[in-house]
């Protein structure tokens, strides 16, 4: 640990003496990983609590979208996904089980890989999951001819929803790093709330906690950009233009947070021939008719809002493990339950 970080920890400890219990929420799954991997919670005073928010894209993907994509796979439509989505539990199956049963499911590292696969499997559908960080890549690939089932979401509306929920008493946000690289730092000014955009190294996260506590003490409700080496005020205009060209904003359902107005990204009519929701409209209606109620007690939706913890869940470490995930928070390596299972 460098001198500056040690000094930051000392300052956090000193400042914390003036405060009651403080809850800081990290909004990016990779920040949650850094905090767990380097055991940063152990370096903090007891009254400074870090909680994981809805920053794991796989975790907040609506159950219905997952079930539709599994349904498409079971109807012999080849599916390309980012690795995390393979074991997402559906009402009846998972993409992993579909793959074991001979369906064409491909894990891709990028949308370029999906485009290559599409040459071999012309009916291939890419399951587009993620926030502003992965949406430009999907937009780029749609323009190149990739067919996509879009579950893409915008991040700031989720922050607004968290702030308006009186059951969640958060004192400060650690804002996402790479989402911010795309959308810029300025957009967060609309939230009159202590926020720090930060990088992914433990030194970055410690510094962001110090800055947040300073703001809380001084009742300073603003956004500080600690990740200035990557995040600009305006963001990546090329990426934003691509998103706007290909997608339109609509309401979307988030696991745990429910329906959030103007938080989802739908493929524009201009690109409807690349929109799986348009191409397979009738099939999707049929798939939905076959939905049965989800039967398990997973509380992922409450965990990703910071209302409950993994240990509060009756399934955690019992029937729900990374090998046998019962819910999305255990599936993703960025999910709070997966991280808690692995590191504590």
């Amino acid at each position, binding site marked *: 640990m460098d001198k500056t970080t040690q000094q930051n920890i000392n300052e956090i400890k000193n400042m914390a003496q003036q405060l009651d219990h403080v809850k800081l929420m990290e909004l990016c799954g990779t920040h949650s990983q850094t905090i767990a991997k380097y055991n940063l919670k152990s370096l903090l005073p007891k009254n400074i609590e870090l909680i994981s928010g809805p920053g794991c894209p796989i975790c907040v993907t609506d159950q219905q979208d997952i079930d539709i994509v599994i349904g498409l796979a079971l109807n012999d439509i080849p599916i390309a996904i980012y690795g995390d989505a393979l074991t997402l539990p559906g009402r009846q199956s998972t993409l992993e089980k579909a793959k074991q049963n001979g369906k064409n499911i491909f894990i891709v590292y990028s949308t370029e890989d999906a485009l290559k696969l599409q040459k071999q499997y012309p009916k291939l559908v890419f399951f587009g999951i993620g926030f502003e960080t992965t949406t430009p890549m999907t937009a780029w690939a749609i323009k190149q001819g990739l067919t996509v089932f879009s579950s893409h979401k915008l991040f700031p509306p989720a922050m607004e929803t968290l702030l308006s929920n009186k059951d969640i008493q958060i004192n400060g946000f650690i804002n996402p790093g790479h989402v911010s690289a795309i959308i810029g730092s300025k957009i967060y000014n609309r939230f009159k709330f202590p926020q720090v955009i930060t*990088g992914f190294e433990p030194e970055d996260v410690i510094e962001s906690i110090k800055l947040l506590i300073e703001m809380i003490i001084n009742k300073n409700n603003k956004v500080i950009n600690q990740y200035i080496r990557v995040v600009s005020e305006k963001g990546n205009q090329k990426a934003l233009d691509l998103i706007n060209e290909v997608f339109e904003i609509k309401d979307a359902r988030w696991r745990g947070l429910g329906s959030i107005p103007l938080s989802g990204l739908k493929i524009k009519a201009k690109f409807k021939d690349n929109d799986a929701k348009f191409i397979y409209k009738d099939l999707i209606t049929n798939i939905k008719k076959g939905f049965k109620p989800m039967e398990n007690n997973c509380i992922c939706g409450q965990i990703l809002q910071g209302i409950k913890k993994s240990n509060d869940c009756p399934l955690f470490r019992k029937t729900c493990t990374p090998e046998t995930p019962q819910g999305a928070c255990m599936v993703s390596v960025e999910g709070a339950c997966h991280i808690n299972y692995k590191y504590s």
Partner: protein
Amino acid sequence: MCLAIPGKIKSISGHKAIIDYDGLEKEANVSLIDGQVDDYVIVHAGFAIEKLSKKDAAKTLKYFNNG
């Protein structure tokens, strides 16, 4: 999953570039940035999403090497 290691653009051909991560070379798409050879970039899901100054890249790499 945000991979925050900066890499250096070694060569560019159309929208594709070869990125050098301290000796390890990988291909990335550079459509989202105005990149040139020798620029340091952050790559996310196969695409360069932002450029870094040489000084900032060195700062991040120092964290990694100490980590």
